[in-house]
């Protein structure tokens, strides 16, 4: 009987899966104040991974806000072979991913190739080298280095492939450690450059990073029985508290409140993130 059910459902499923919506030529401008959704009475399932913004998206937004390239704030790529613990390797995979995106979108082509090679090396050490090998990512990257659109596409593809592979293969510990390290690296770079330039746009984006942070902390707390995150969760919670100081007025349903960090608040964030980062990231001699 069940056989027939599946046979009958198949065309409907296909129809639903293939049902294309109308192409929207414009970006909808939605007023969320107008309607309130029906309350969900059934239990919300919590077994879904949050879709977090990609490192490339974050890097692009910071670039658009005025973050220029500064070679002194990225990790020392020459030390990528010195990380022997799996935790450190996963951590550095996240750090190098952000440094890769940051250098590539600022046309630091050779440096970005170095970061990609370092990432591939660490992926090999972690047993997840398929991510790089499946699409010949490194060789395609080297062949297209002068074409920034191709570079962005390849990096985006690498990041999404990493995310998909780690989730599909239940390597959530590697995913969460590298995502957290990437998050810290993005805040490290941006807070350093915000402290140097004082640009409000950059500070505002630093405030926006709290959204991803709260989900990272939540996801790690949900997976502590499967992985040892060391002091990473408590470190991130400390950064979260420091970032909260920038919320000067509360958000409304449709509008963001004022987020700003004065010089002292920024400096304390820079110092805090630098201290956490230095636990793993090789310091330059």
């Amino acid at each position, binding site marked *: 009987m*069940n*056989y*027939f*059910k*599946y*046979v009958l*459902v*198949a065309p*409907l*499923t296909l129809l*639903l*899966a293939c*049902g*294309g*919506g109308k192409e*929207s030529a*414009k*970006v*909808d*401008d*939605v007023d*969320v*104040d107008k*309607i*309130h*959704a029906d*309350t*969900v009475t*059934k*239990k*919300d*399932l919590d*077994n*879904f991974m*949050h*879709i*977090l*913004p990609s490192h*490339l*998206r974050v890097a*692009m*937004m910071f670039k658009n806000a005025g973050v220029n390239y500064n070679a002194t704030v990225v990790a020392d790529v020459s030390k990528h072979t010195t990380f022997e613990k799996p935790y450190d390797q996963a951590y550095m995979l996240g750090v190098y991913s952000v440094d890769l995106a940051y250098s590539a979108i600022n046309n630091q082509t050779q440096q970005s190739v170095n970061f990609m090679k370092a990432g591939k090396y660490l992926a090999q050490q972690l047993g997840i080298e398929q991510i790089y090998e499946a699409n010949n990512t490194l060789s395609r990257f080297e062949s297209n280095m002068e074409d920034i659109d191709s570079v962005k*596409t390849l990096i*985006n*593809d690498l990041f*999404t*492939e990493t*995310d*998909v*592979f780690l*989730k*599909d293969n239940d390597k959530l510990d590697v995913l969460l450690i590298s995502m957290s390290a990437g998050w810290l690296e993005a805040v490290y770079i941006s807070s350093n450059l915000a402290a140097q330039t004082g640009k409000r746009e950059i500070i505002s984006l630093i405030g*926006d990073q709290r*959204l*991803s942070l709260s*989900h990272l902390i939540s996801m790690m707390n949900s997976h502590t029985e499967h992985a040892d995150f060391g002091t990473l969760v408590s470190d991130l919670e400390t950064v979260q508290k420091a970032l909260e100081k920038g919320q000067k007025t509360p958000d409304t*349903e*449709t*509008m*963001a409140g004022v987020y700003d960090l004065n010089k002292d608040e920024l400096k304390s964030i820079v110092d805090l993130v630098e201290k956490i980062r230095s636990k793993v990231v090789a310091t330059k001699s």
Partner: protein
Amino acid sequence: MKKLIIHFLSVVAITFIANSHLSAQQCKLKQIKKEYKNKVEPYMFEGVASGYIFTGETARIPVTLYANQKYRLYFFTDGFDGPVTINIVTRNRFLVWTNKENMMEDHFTFMPKKSDDYFVEFVTPKSADEDARGCVAVILASRGF
């Protein structure tokens, strides 16, 4: 006649096995990414989340979106005995979008006014089989890289 019945049952069995395999594969993120990577163009595939839920249940997949960025969210469902209602709500459950007017709509284009978490909610139809499960997924695509 007996041969015809055996032949028919074989076809049904093969179809069932193939379809079961397809469903399991279709909820794999790799498979969904493969299917949507080109479909989302000119947007760029940015992320995906999927999972199995029991029919009749409601699931919410959270997505973090930034203000003033162009996003397109695609929705994928498989294995349910009827249309699935899809809502996008804010953290305080204000409705941003719903497919109630057009259940065949499979995507929503959106430029948020403020950076926030949004939740894609799948309200799935009940099934006679209490143990039946289906796959739901959200595909995030964006422009402006």
